């Protein structure tokens, strides 16, 4: 299954990945805060992820690793 | 030492720098030092070295910073207003602990001033080269031979202590021609593990930087640097002592004015006045040991400079109120004459009931 892994050390909850995902699979986690106090991005539905890597392309903090099945 | 050749001061500096292994020269024309740059522009391309006329003295000192940071031996030269432009760059070099040689062929100031010789950049060189707590080693040659010798050694001193070094000359020394024995060529290459010239995947990365936002880190850097300065003060002070063994009047002068004073001292001695000359060769570290060695025996000090009174403050500091310190000087490009200085010595001798 393709998926993205978001490293919360780096994620600042800027939302660029959320805006760019063509399948709207990413959201900012309302339940969680990173150690720096950001709401980190999370992949809501890995089954629909195609590893297009648009999220990682836009991520200014290089927080996203993309795994292609 | 090779045979003597007749050379202009500015050119002797350039030739000696090349022989010391100076790899890069970045400069900009300004009277009265332009011959140095012109000499480098002719010699360096043939030696496979880097010569570049920068767009300004500011750009030149920043090119020096870049080249020095890669570990190269590098020099720039200018004159008073151009040295002011280099202030920030010099501070950055000190803050990043970079070696380099900066030549100031002093002219009259302040502002655009004049193009004739002066010594009015003493404060700038020893106190205010740039912002922040730092010192630059300042060497003051007084002959064309010394222009060559001091710059030849300056590169070694700069590397040894990782600090910028200034050669503080003036327009007279820069323009005059005297016989000089040129030193032997050396490569000047030393091991610089701190240099940032591309890590080649063989070592950790190096960063050339003077920014330390954490206050304790910045204070620590300053403290370590001043510990190095203490070593420099202990080891590197130099002054020429001329007829000081029994001197009751001690004249202190550097560079071009020391030449004038020497003649005046000789004339005063010929009429029986016990006068001597201390000629600082390092202006920073100031040769306080030399002053100390005569302060008890001296009745009075006389400082002669081509400015409104700058080095006299350092002499007064070293003398610490124990003896009086007079000052005589000219500025604006006027060089005191031996007669004028002799008359000052006579005046002081008369005061003390010497005659």
């Amino acid at each position, binding site marked *: 299954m393709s998926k993205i892994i978001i490293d919360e050390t780096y994620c600042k909850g800027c939302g*660029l990945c959320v805006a760019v995902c063509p399948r709207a699979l990413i959201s900012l986690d309302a339940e969680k805060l990173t150690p720096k106090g950001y709401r980190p991005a999370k992949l809501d539905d890995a089954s629909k992820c195609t590893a297009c890597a648009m999220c*990682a*392309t836009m991520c*200014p903090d290089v927080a996203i690793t993309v*795994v292609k099945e | 030492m090779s045979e003597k050749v007749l050379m202009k001061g500015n050119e002797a500096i350039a030739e000696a720098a090349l022989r010391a292994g100076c790899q890069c020269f970045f400069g900009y024309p300004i009277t009265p030092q332009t011959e140095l740059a012109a000499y480098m522009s002719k010699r360096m391309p043939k030696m496979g070295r880097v010569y570049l006329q920068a767009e300004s003295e500011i750009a030149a000192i920043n090119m020096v*910073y*870049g*080249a020095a940071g890669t570990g190269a031996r590098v020099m720039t030269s200018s004159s008073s207003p151009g040295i002011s432009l280099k202030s920030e760059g010099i501070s950055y070099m000190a803050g990043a602990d970079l070696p380099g040689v900066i030549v100031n062929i002093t002219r009259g100031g302040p502002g655009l001033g004049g193009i004739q010789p002066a010594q009015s950049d003493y404060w700038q060189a020893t106190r205010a080269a740039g912002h922040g707590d730092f010192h630059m080693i300042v060497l003051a040659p007084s002959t064309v031979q010394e222009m060559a010798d001091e710059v030849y050694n300056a590169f070694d001193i700069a590397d040894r202590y990782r600090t910028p070094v200034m050669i503080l000359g003036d327009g007279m020394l820069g323009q005059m021609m005297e016989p000089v024995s040129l030193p032997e060529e050396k490569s000047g290459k030393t091991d610089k593990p701190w240099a940032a010239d591309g890590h*080649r995947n063989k070592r950790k990365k190096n*960063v050339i930087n003077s920014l330390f936002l954490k206050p304790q880190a910045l204070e620590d850097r300053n403290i370590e640097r001043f510990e190095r300065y203490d070593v420099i003060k202990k080891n590197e002070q130099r002054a020429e002592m001329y007829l000081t063994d029994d001197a009751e009047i001690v004249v202190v002068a550097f560079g071009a004015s020391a030449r004038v004073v020497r003649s005046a001292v000789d004339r005063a001695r010929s009429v029986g006045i016990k006068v001597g000359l201390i000629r600082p060769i390092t202006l920073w570290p100031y040769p306080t040991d030399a002053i100390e060695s005569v302060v008890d025996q001296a009745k009075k000090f006389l400082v002669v400079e081509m400015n409104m009174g700058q080095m006299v403050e350092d002499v007064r500091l070293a003398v610490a109120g124990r003896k009086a310190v007079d000052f005589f000087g000219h500025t604006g490009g006027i060089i005191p004459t031996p007669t004028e200085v002799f008359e000052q010595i006579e005046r002081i001798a008369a005061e003390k009931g010497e005659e």
Partner: protein
Amino acid sequence: MGEIIFKRPDALEDTVFSYCPGCTHGISHRLIAEIIDELGIEGTTVGVAPVGCSVMAYDFFTCDMFEAAHGRAPAVATGIKRVNPDNVVFAYQGDGDLASIGMAETVHAASRGENITVIFINNAIYGMTGGQMAPTSLPGQVTQTSPFGRDVTQAGYPIRVVELLSELDGVALAQRVTLDTPKHVREAKRAIKKAFEYQIAGVGYSIVEIVSTCPTNWGLSPQDAFQWMRDNMLPYYPLGVYRDVKAEGFDNIHDRAADKRERLSCGKDEK
């Protein structure tokens, strides 16, 4: 289990960037690091950081780095490159650093055809110091030092840097790109990669101007900042290639300059 097709480049340290959330500096840094990895040049690369938000870029790249005085990165880069032309030297600068205090160094390094790569982050504002007017701030743009909007009768007009530099014979590549969409990010990466490749091939001076955002000082969210940029900055700073000597059919800046001299002396129109 699956193949990792996108990860942190090796040429970036593991350090978290000090940039604001959504700041395009991070994307630019990542592209440079990816290119360093792809070209295998980390060992011979020396980067020069400016004064500005990216002052601590020396903490983010794994190659040797210099911190330069404000505006002087091209001069520092010149010193580094001239000592060892085998090194790949890049200068990374913001709009104050490159186009205000450093304009002389910028123009002269370009004019000399220094074989360096300059990455110019143009976000029309001074970020680090809290949002003052930049030489690239737009007419009417509200900043801390233009609180009623940039008044062109007092402060003059913004500077289009790549256009300005594209007049100089020393420039091998001058291109303006942006980072608001994955397509633009990929175009930007191609441009930056070309700029590095031109340096390695000794073609001449390269500059890539990256039209960027400053969400914090523009007072907009990262996404809204991209929209503001599209609506206001891109019309003033059009994307495109303003000089590419190889695309014009020349090997390097010297061949192009010789050709131009020839044309001018024959009274022919400038190409």
